[in-house]
């Protein structure tokens, strides 16, 4: 899987580093002082690197837990995110990571204990009843579970912190470790879903949507709280029919009482990020049709965004209670369309 592994010298002897290296016996090991020597350097090309990304094992220094942008919560007053990884195994053409980093290499920060400390600190300072911690912002929370043991470690940690909620955000179907343990009420497994008609073309290397639906159904049956993330909503041929069918497939399989939250998100990118992504993929139709720039953000023209959002909202509200519906903030919609 990884042919090359860069290792920060300071973490070379860390047990998590050694365990990871043992999984890739054939890989070349290359030492570095700081992962920034290899990751995100100016002369790198994300698209070329994505063909064969390397793994970087590093220590996360500085701020490890950050507040989310305003409005990006799922019901909690205080929302934070943390990234034990940078970059993703998958290659979704709409993903902002392509525009955010010049590197497609995957960085794993192996100092989990320092993340625990930072999370504890935020919990202690929290003024709300139940702060919310998102783990899948710069990566997929589950996709590299076989290498990172991330969920195992962090679910153990959150099992002792029932006054905080962890969200795992994923497109992965690597759910064996979750099925094998007792569900936690304060750990939400949130799946990102897109109609198959476009997922097949735009979500490279991801499990098929049907398998994701089956995976979330199995987790729901087991008792895990489930999040549904229809983000980004994508305008395409037959989008009404495709989104309607997607919602129907999900809610046919899912026990509704296991549902923690449902959110919608627009296809939206800061303009500079959009430009970088279009330069990487000038041949990609997704970046060519129906988009407009407003207030430094590129997204669908307002009438298209409104159509998408209101249709999907109305469809979803036939299945779910409005209290668990969370549309994400928008720059092109005229108003917040929460019911």
């Amino acid at each position, binding site marked *: 899987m990884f042919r090359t592994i860069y290792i920060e010298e300071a973490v070379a002897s860390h047990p998590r580093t050694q365990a990871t290296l043992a999984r890739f016996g054939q890989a*070349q090991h*290359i030492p570095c002082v700081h992962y920034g020597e290899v990751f995100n350097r100016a002369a790198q*090309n994300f698209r*070329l690197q994505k063909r064969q990304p390397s793994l970087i094992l590093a220590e996360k220094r500085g701020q490890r837990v950050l507040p989310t942008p305003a409005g990006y919560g799922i019901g909690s007053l205080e929302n934070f995110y943390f990234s034990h990884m940078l970059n993703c195994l998958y290659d979704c053409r709409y993903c902002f990571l392509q525009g955010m980093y010049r590197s497609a290499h995957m960085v794993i920060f192996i100092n989990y204990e320092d993340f625990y400390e930072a999370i504890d600190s935020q919990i202690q300072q929290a003024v709300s009843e139940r702060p919310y911690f998102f783990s899948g912002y710069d990566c997929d929370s589950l996709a590299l579970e076989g290498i990172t043991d991330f969920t195992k470690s962090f679910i153990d940690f959150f099992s002792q912190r029932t006054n905080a909620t962890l969200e795992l955000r994923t497109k992965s179907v690597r759910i064996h470790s979750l099925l094998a343990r007792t569900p936690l009420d304060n750990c939400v497994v949130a799946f990102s879903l897109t109609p198959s008609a476009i997922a097949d073309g735009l979500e490279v290397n991801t499990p098929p949507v049907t398998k994701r639906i089956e995976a979330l159904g199995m987790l729901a049956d087991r008792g895990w709280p489930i999040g549904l993330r229809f983000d980004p909503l994508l305008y*395409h*041929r037959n989008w009404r029919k495709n989104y309607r069918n997607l919602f129907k497939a999900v809610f046919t399989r899912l026990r509704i009482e296991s549902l923690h939250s449902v959110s919608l998100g627009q296809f939206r990118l800061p303009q500079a990020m959009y430009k970088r992504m279009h330069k*990487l993929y000038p041949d990609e139709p997704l*970046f060519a*049709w129906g988009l407009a720039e407003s207030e430094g953000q590129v997204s669908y023209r307002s009438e298209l965004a409104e159509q998408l959002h209101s249709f999907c909202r109305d469809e979803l509200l036939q299945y779910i209670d409005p209290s668990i519906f969370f549309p994400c903030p928008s720059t092109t919609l005229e108003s917040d369309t929460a019911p």
Partner: protein
Amino acid sequence: MLYIHTALPAEARPILDHYALRMHDASAPFSLYTGNQVRLVVSGVGKTATAAAVAYTYARFADQPGPWLNVGIAGHKTAPLGKSLWVQKAVDTATNTPFFPSLTIPPPCDGSVLQTVDQPRADYPSDTLFDMEGSAFFQTAQRVVPAELSHSVKIVSDNKEAPWETLDRQRVERWISDLLPIIEHMRTELESLTAVWLLQRADPPYFERALSQYRFSQTQQNRLRRLLQQWHSVAPDTPPWSPDHSEQSAAQVLDTLEARLGEPSHLPY
């Protein structure tokens, strides 16, 4: 087109013969050879000569950019003579600055860290490769191509038991001949990566034609390039303008194109 850099004429000789390269310009400040698939420059020894030769060659063929490969001999503390090694990291020992090629192609052979030194040395202080050009090669090549397209392969020419003073031209040529399959392997692997990179840099169809027909400001040219790229991605088989289009100005051309691009018939997926 693969661009190869060597420091010594003896390192270049087997490559010139294998790819049937001919002298490009006898008056050039560096020996520069060219063929159908490969161009090669011989810089002379050292970091300054290397940086100058790579920069000169790039500028000379700026309209035909391609991947860069440094090929040469190097010392190593313990590796046997004649062993091929792909450079994973090059360190300029004068400044302790590391340079990393991006290893996105299958490894052609074992890898090693390379230390680039300013003077030949016989003490081999660490278990790595030693040369006098590698860091400068990467520092310069990564200015002109992405790190995925700049690489270095070395063959061990001296070690603790066989110091560099015993080297001769015939042995260098023989070792470099042994490297030819690796060079060819890298050339073909880098070719497909380069095709993607060139696609990213290319002007879209109809761009030059539009520039010749209307006067575009620089800002309008940027918009034209983007719109034509977008057009080509949603309607690759259809011209962006009808044959009898009647726009009077560059601004009208751009507005018409943007309006056509937004038509529902071009909705992707």
